């Protein structure tokens, strides 16, 4: 029973998605199934995480094909953590969608596609095979294409054309990289690749392959010169969709980058330098972009880009402390970014606008909600003891250790600009006197919707804020977790042994 334990989160999402398709037009049933299913998924993910935490890395060979030949599923602490975070964000967005997405959209298969997206994410985290990773990425992007276009408004379709083109291009570059890697080594299993790539004599070709992976994953995770699709599309779909995109889609690119550059292409100084430079530019351009935007959701979109820089900078420095900082930041960022887009949805529900200039007087009218929104907004900035503060300590320490003062400057600069942006947003939206926003007669305002919907909108925000608070105040636990993940990632022999040297216990 426990042997296939790590596949349960995967199978559960697949069953949910298929089950939901049988209730195609019955959206009330879909809502209940989705929420209950996400709750079960959270429980299963906690179970898997606890099991991995106590027993170490687990592998499953699909169809019992021995390791380098079949498809391997592997859950080390990193993968288990990411699956757990996916289920936390998934549960929150599932509840939030039930309350905030209008039923015209839900009727076109919103929930089944949403669970296919979560299936793809879970699969991408658990797989140990590079081509299988490509397939999970495709499941993710096909689902995300549907979610981003559902509703079919003008802005949505325009955003979707850009989103589609660049993500398709990224997939093709990823596929090209896999083809070259297969031509070089004749293997697709990541652990096997780690061994074989190290033995390849044509280092130039290995480096080019690594760059292809970097570009492919870089587009997906919105790295510096490749991020333009993100602010052009993330503010167009309903905020529930933006929440899951902002929280998890770019992070799966970061996950893949970390995986590939700690396992397959290791110890290449040139690549680390490139990662560092890209990360520094990402931090700068994302921060400056956020500064000039007026639409709240566009501000958050640029902040996503900016904060991707923090994770990549840790990967570029490639010391254990830096990687631990990266992992901690990843944990904090998934929770906070999902929450921020849900907050922008709540503000939109209440006022009917997301423009900072038009909004105002939020604190005077809704003091309790404002207090709630304070938590994720200032966790993002990293005011101690909130959650964004702790990973930055690790990153700054690491940049001192590796004498990389440009990274240090970029980290502090981006942190400062984030503070300015959030302070500006706070002053404009919450403190400024309320301005008259023209009332939209058909819009379903917050005060017009049923109580149950209001609860469904507010509860996930409270839930994620509590998780954020836990990450901030229980930083010791998360630090222990990220240090353990970092040590596992730095010593890739553990991963290789777990995949290739498994004796099937009888």
């Amino acid at each position, binding site marked *: 029973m426990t042997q296939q334990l790590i596949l349960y989160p995967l199978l559960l999402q697949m069953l949910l998605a298929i089950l939901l398709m049988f209730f195609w037009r019955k959206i009330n049933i879909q809502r209940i199934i989705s929420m209950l299913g996400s709750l079960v998924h959270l429980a299963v993910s906690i179970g898997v995480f606890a099991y991995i935490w106590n027993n170490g890395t687990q592998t499953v060979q699909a169809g019992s094909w021995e390791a380098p030949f079949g498809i391997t599923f592997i859950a080390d602490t990193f993968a288990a953590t990411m699956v757990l975070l996916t289920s936390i964000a998934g549960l929150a967005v599932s509840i939030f969608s039930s309350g905030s997405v209008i039923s015209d959209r839900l009727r076109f298969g919103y929930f089944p596609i949403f669970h296919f997206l979560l299936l793809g994410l879970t699969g991408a985290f658990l797989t140990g095979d590079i081509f299988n990773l490509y397939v999970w990425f495709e499941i993710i992007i*096909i689902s995300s294409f549907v979610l981003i276009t559902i509703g079919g408004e003008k802005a949505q379709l*325009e955003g979707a054309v850009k989103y589609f083109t660049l993500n398709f*291009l990224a997939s093709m570059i990823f596929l090209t990289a896999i083809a070259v890697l297969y*031509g070089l080594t004749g293997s697709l299993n990541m652990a096997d690749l780690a061994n074989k790539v190290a033995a390849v004599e044509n280092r130039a070709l290995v480096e080019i392959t690594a760059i292809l992976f970097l570009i492919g994953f870089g587009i997906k995770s919105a790295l510096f010169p490749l991020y333009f699709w993100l602010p052009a599309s993330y503010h167009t779909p309903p905020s529930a969709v933006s929440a899951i995109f902002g929280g998890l889609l770019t992070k799966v690119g970061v996950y893949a980058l970390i995986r590939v550059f700690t396992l397959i292409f290791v110890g290449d100084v040139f690549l680390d330098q490139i990662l560092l430079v890209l990360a520094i530019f990402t931090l700068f351009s994302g921060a400056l972009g956020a500064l000039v935007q007026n639409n709240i959701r566009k501000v958050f979109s640029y902040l996503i880009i900016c904060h991707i820089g923090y994770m990549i900078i840790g990967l570029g420095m490639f010391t254990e402390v830096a990687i631990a900082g990266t992992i901690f930041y990843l944990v904090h960022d998934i929770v906070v970014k999902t929450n921020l887009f849900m907050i922008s949805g709540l503000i939109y529900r209440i006022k009917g606008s997301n423009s900072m200039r038009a909004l105002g007087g939020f604190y005077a009218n809704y003091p309790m909600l404002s207090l709630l929104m304070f938590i994720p907004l200032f966790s993002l900035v990293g005011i101690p003891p909130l959650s964004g503060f702790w990973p930055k300590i690790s990153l700054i320490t690491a940049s001192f250790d590796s004498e990389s003062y440009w990274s240090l400057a970029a980290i502090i600069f981006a942190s400062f600009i984030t503070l300015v942006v959030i302070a500006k947003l706070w002053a404009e939206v919450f403190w400024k006197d309320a301005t008259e926003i023209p009332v939209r007669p058909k819009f379903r305002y917050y005060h017009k919707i049923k109580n149950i919907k209001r609860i469904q909108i507010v509860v996930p925000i409270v839930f994620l804020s509590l998780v954020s608070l836990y990450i901030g105040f229980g930083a010791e636990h998360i630090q222990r977790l990220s240090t353990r993940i970092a040590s596992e990632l730095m010593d890739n022999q553990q991963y290789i042994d777990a995949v290739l040297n498994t004796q099937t216990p009888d």
Partner: protein
Amino acid sequence: MEILLAIIIGVLYAAGIYMILRRSLVKLIIGIILLGNGANLLIFLLGRITEGAPPIIPEESKVFLEAYADPVPQALILTAIVISFGLQSFAIILVKRAHKVVKTDDLDEMNATDEDS
């Protein structure tokens, strides 16, 4: 054969990327299709081309005696073809809808999402 395939792949990639860079939505779809086919052929080529040697072990022996065609790239291509087929059909519908709603075929005029709002 290898050289011919290599040239074709190069042309497909170049033409695909050129078409994606054009402003017309229809050419975008053509570019996507060309690029997808180029990637599939690349997997085929990099799996090494072996003519007339199917990966079947002769009845009298227990191992392969000669070089054989690697079946894995073909499995990969099959998967990749199905995926890119799905993506391409989605792209065609998306472009049709976008054209209907935005009422333009020119990507340069699709800039509503970049404006300040």
